[in-house]
């Protein structure tokens, strides 16, 4: 996250911007610690650090690239046509960037009837720059855009929390529209057990 404000959810980790190379290196170092001794652990750590340092520039991705989890296809790859059309109808050709939205939702939801979701933004909120609306979208729900939260300058900064229904495993997208017209978003894949929509 390239913003001056510290994240409110720093202790929970940043699910929105998972980086495949970073996660892989960390797992490699941990594996070395359990299978070999201290020397091996250090060597693995050095190798991992070197790999990380090398892989960073090679990736050549912008800081606000689409979130990508190891072994999974990203939210843009899995976006179905209905969502594409809805985004086109709502936002036209405006660019929707990933980042700055702190989206807190469980990745495993055994009960799809009530999935808690918290949306927040880590940009500074001033009377001239505030979130005018949060959009909450579930790709595979009957109503894709199931909640729109219009805020004003009198709202101030803070999270929106709600509970949503989900039909089946799909990406959940939170899009924050600033009053300046910028669109920031985050997407999390939620694995659903019980169908909550019918």
């Amino acid at each position, binding site marked *: 996250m390239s913003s001056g404000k510290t994240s409110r959810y720093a202790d929970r980790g940043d699910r929105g911007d998972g980086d495949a190379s970073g996660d892989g290196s960390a797992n490699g170092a941990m594996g070395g610690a359990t299978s070999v001794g201290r020397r091996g652990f250090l060597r693995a750590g050095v190798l991992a650090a070197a790999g990380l340092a090398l892989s960073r520039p090679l990736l050549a991705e912008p800081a606000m690239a689409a979130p990508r989890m190891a072994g999974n296809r990203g939210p843009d790859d899995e976006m179905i046509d209905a969502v594409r059309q809805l985004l086109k109808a709502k936002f036209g050709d405006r660019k929707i960037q990933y980042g700055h939205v702190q989206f807190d939702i469980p990745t495993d939801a055994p009960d799809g009837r009530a999935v808690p979701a918290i949306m927040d933004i880590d940009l500074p909120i001033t009377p001239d720059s505030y979130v005018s609306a949060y959009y909450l979208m579930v790709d595979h729900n009957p109503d894709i855009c199931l909640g729109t*939260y*219009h*805020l004003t300058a009198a709202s101030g900064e803070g999270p929106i929390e709600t509970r949503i229904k989900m039909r089946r495993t799909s990406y959940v997208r939170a899009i924050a529209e600033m009053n300046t017209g910028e669109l920031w978003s985050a997407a999390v894949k939620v694995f659903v057990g019980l169908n*909550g929509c019918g």
Partner: protein
Amino acid sequence: MPSTHHQIPADAPALTFAMPASPPTVGDAKILLPLSVARNAVIDVRALLVHPMDTGFFRDASGNPIPAYFVNAVTVMYGGEQVARFEWTSGISRDPFVRFPLRASREAPVQVVWKDNKGGVYQQSVDLKFA
């Protein structure tokens, strides 16, 4: 030998959680503000409405479809001025709960109005006081 057991007075309140006097009915609403609010602080307002939020896709025990019945518009008024507006569908869970920020700029009532797709209008308001 005196008993060391604690004697519970006969008139002591029960230690179990009391059930509400009447079952919740559609339209019962609560708004929760923080216990103490400072001037110009941004507070979290929590609002809860008792509502079935039926999607229209489920059937009852005898196989008849349950028609869609859900809250689709929520407005938040602060001292007579609209500060937030939510558009909902049946994808919001039953007994819809929402937490949203509000800048406490003055002592005024906070009112939330819910409207559902069958014309029902429910409202609840609390007075915001600085403490």
